[in-house]
């Protein structure tokens, strides 16, 4: 099962897990990314490159399936306007063994951070807004998978 979804709607992480739990594997791992508040953040807008996004996520999912024996992968990424506490991204993996599920889940989120065409713009209480800068530590996180 490969399930990729990019869109504005929220999603139910419990349902996502249940689908992965039903695949007959012994382990399901997940990561959910959430908009953090603080620093006066009011909202965030996620732009993407629609023609490229799902194709690029598809490539990353295929790469994970080539590296680990996975029974299922779910990747959901939201776009549009989001607020503190909102879910942004969900990555879930199912495998016969826990190591494959956990490692591939970490791999997928590391790659999504650095290789899927999304951009975040943050809007603050004082009226200013900033495009989020790519972080060197995200590139570092990726290095361990090479």
């Amino acid at each position, binding site marked *: 099962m490969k399930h990729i979804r990019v869109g504005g709607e929220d999603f139910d992480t419990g349902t996502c897990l249940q689908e992965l739990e039903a695949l007959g594997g012994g382990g399901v791992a997940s990561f959910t*990314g959430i908009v953090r508040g603080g620093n006066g953040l009011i909202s965030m807008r*996620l*732009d*993407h*490159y629609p*023609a*490229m996004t799902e*194709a*690029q996520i598809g490539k990353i999912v295929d790469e994970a399936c080539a590296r680990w024996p996975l029974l299922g992968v779910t990747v959901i*990424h939201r776009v549009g306007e989001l607020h503190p506490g909102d879910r*942004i*991204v969900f990555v879930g993996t199912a495998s016969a063994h826990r190591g494959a599920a956990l490692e591939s889940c970490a791999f997928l*989120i590391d790659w*999504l*951070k*650095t*290789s*899927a*065409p*999304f*951009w*975040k*713009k943050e809007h603050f209480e004082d009226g200013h807004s900033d*495009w*989020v*800068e*790519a972080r060197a530590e995200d590139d570092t996180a990726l290095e361990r998978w090479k």
Partner: protein
Amino acid sequence: MQLSILYFAWVREAIGNDGEAIDHPGDDATVADVIAALSARGGGYAQAFADMTRVRAALDHAFVPFETPIGKAAELALFPPVTGG
């Protein structure tokens, strides 16, 4: 023949446009050549491409280095490093 160019995030904001079509620069022209030509227009273009370490490119939906020839590609996208996830 034309080449579609798309801009995203602050590259789009600096240029003030989602994208445009330009005359295809020929198969041998590189991504860097196209960016240099855009940058030469000055204004928001010059600003968007002033620091190329902060720009990334995708040709027909695949990330490419700037020295990549345009070849038969129909769509070039220019944008900052991605910040999803």
